[in-house]
């Protein structure tokens, strides 16, 4: 067992840190620590410009093969990049869906023409992507998708009709990948297609969803005979589920240590406040701050086990508990922040409803245990896949 990185990896770390230090300056100084969950709506244009800056330095898509402009970075190097990016206060990545979802999907399942058309703009920080999976009737039960795609022989285009929801940053994106039903008679994960759809077209309407924070980073996206070309379906018609689920296999947890760096920043802020306002003498607060510290460190070593796991990319036990662990921890941290602040926590200092960071943290972390698979779904997955317990029988209990 070895907790430290190799000398070569540490040299890579220095290179990343130096570049970020040199470039998160001037016009980009104001985007430091901005964006990310709960703050996605801020400095969008500046953060897009930052993506182009990253691209100049070859710091977008570092896990991609060199042939497509990546660095073919190892797992360790990707971890280090994310850590240093978070440490430097790099803003929430506008390009992260393209970098970590669209790109790997096309590299695995896409045609050469699709790669040539879509990969370079992602790599160069010029095209931004969003994800069209969830629907009003297909949340936890994703396979219940009803959005339809019909091939129009006359125009040679796919026509897409339906509604997607919880689409992060759709209003700031250029494309969305859409999981849609090709065969009207098909059920569940059969008969689906995976489509690459431009958002700027008459058939697409985007409506922001105002959240409990008063801000909006999620959207409803309506497709009303929206079109994409015959070449814009990834994989064979009917293989959409396979392509969509393939995405999950690409997630090796390389961003987890970087995510934890941001959590550490939040916890440090809470500790600073507790020391300042005397909450640090409250026995209950002391216990909870210690517990938060233990939880964050636990996440780190859970991640390091996950990252050191099987080379085959199979989801290990540590990987399966990760989402459940961090979302619960983060939600508790939001409440801890409020309890450390006491009655002051209520005060909204900038009108009409401009919440401060900890207030946003408290409110938005209620979403953490829901999006990306609710805690209940996560527990089902753990029980079924890791512990071999039987699936819940399907069907009606109405």
């Amino acid at each position, binding site marked *: *067992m*070895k*907790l*430290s*990185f*190799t000398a070569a*990896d540490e040299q890579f770390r220095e290179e990343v840190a130096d570049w970020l230090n040199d470039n998160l300056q001037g016009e980009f100084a104001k985007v430091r620590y901005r964006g990310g969950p709960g703050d996605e709506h801020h400095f969008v244009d500046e953060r897009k410009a930052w993506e182009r800056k990253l691209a100049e330095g070859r710091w977008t898509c570092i896990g991609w093969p060199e042939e497509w402009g990546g660095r073919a970075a190892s797992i*360790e190097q990707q*971890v280090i990049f994310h850590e240093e990016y978070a440490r430097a206060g790099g803003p929430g990545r506008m390009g992260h869906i393209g970098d970590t979802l669209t790109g790997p999907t096309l590299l695995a399942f896409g045609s050469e023409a699709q790669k040539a058309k879509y990969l370079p703009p992602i790599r160069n920080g010029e095209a931004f992507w969003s994800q069209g999976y969830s629907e009003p009737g297909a949340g936890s039960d994703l396979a219940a998708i009803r959005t339809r795609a019909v091939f129009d022989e006359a125009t040679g285009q796919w026509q897409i009709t339906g509604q997607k929801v919880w689409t992060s940053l759709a209003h700031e994106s250029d494309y969305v990948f859409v999981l849609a039903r090709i065969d009207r008679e098909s059920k569940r994960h059969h008969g689906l297609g995976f489509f690459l759809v431009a958002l700027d077209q008459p058939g697409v309407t985007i409506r922001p969803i105002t959240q409990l924070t008063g801000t909006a980073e999620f959207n409803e996206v309506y497709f009303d005979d929206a079109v994409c070309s015959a070449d814009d379906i990834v994989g064979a018609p009917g293989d959409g589920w396979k392509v969509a689920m393939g995405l999950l296999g690409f997630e090796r947890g390389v961003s987890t240590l970087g995510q934890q760096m941001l959590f550490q920043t939040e916890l440090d802020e809470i*500790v600073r406040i*507790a*020391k300042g306002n005397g909450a*640090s003498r409250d*026995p209950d607060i*002391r*216990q909870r*701050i*210690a*517990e938060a*510290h*233990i939880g964050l*460190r*636990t996440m780190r*070593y*859970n991640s*390091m*086990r996950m*990252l*050191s*796991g099987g080379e085959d990319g199979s989801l290990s*036990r*540590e990987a399966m*508990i990760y989402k*459940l*662990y961090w979302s619960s921890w983060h939600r508790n941290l939001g409440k801890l922040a409020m309890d450390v602040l006491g009655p002051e926590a209520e005060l909204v200092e900038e009108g009409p409803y401009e919440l401060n960071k900890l207030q946003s943290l408290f409110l938005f972390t209620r979403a953490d245990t829901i999006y990306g698979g609710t805690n*209940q779904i*996560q*527990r*089902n997955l*753990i*029980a*079924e896949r*890791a*512990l*071999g*317990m*039987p*699936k*819940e*029988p399907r069907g009606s209990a109405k």
Partner: protein
Amino acid sequence: MKFAFTDEQRMLRDTSQAFLAAESSSAAVRTASTSEQTYDPELWQKICEDMYWQGILVPESCDGLGLGWVELAIVLEAAGERLLTAPLFAVAQSTVALKLCPQTDIRDALLSAIVGGDVISLAMSDQRSGWSSCGVTANDRSNTTLLSGTARFVPFGAAASKFLVVAADASGSQSVWVIDAAQEGVVTEHTPTMDQTRAMATVSLENVAVSVDQLLADDAASLVDKTLALSRILVVADQVGVAQASLDISVDYTKERSQFDRTIASFQAIKHKAADMMLKAESARSLLYYAACIADAWFAGEADDAALEEAACMASACASEAAFFNAGSGIQMHGGVGITEEYDIQLYFKRARATESFLGRPAEMREALACQLLDGGAS
């Protein structure tokens, strides 16, 4: 960065688990833990002669294996999983204390004796005001020193041939001595406990005369602190095993038990409980092996005292709660049979309870961490 077992470590885990599956069965544990000796000397002999677990941390110069904390944690985790009823923890703890004493011939002879199978237990605390509370006094009388007082919760004390005794003089300065269990003035009493798999004893000393030959360390306050922190990591390994086994046997039971024409393992109320148990067991395991790596680094001079203290406190708080939560939830998943003597889950529940308060409760561990985080120093 490779936070995973090496091939050798994986092999050690597999052979340890296989050995204990055969030798520390439910029936064997029940027989050993209720026997007069409180353990099975034959099994202990087998462990010492065939497995050599008592020698893992002992340097090769003292006939040991000279291995590290990860290896020891692997074996102790397997021991917890099978409720091993043998003085393995006791000698591991004494080995830790001896390794912290200055190197002398006497010390090295004691380490060799442990490798030879001698049971040596640490008599450290009277538990009047916490685990660092020393109940034995050392009075200087011209050429000899007299030890008097009591040490409680001495692991497998009734089986020990020698004790390492922590004593305090009139000024409060602590020292460590080795005494023979048969020495005049020493009375060892097995103290029956709820958890019968980890025997405890009270060792009473009345004017036990000790010579300088028996002195292992002076000014031992720091040594005692470090022994406590490192001992907690040993307990954590046991607790991770208990947490894992509680999960495994409970899930197995729910897969067999049928109600409403379904196995109860198919109910979400059961599945979600099991998922939480796995999360706790895996998290405790991550902190255990982190703490084991830190312990190795600390002995190598590559980690400081604060890092060791932090690692031990975090792992202890996490693993204590994981073991208790999993064993308690395990009883609930078993339903009515969970509270019967016949099923093993109650044995894990008792071991989890006993280890949770042994060497410090989770709340004490968190308070120690809070001192580091909020008060800018140790407690």
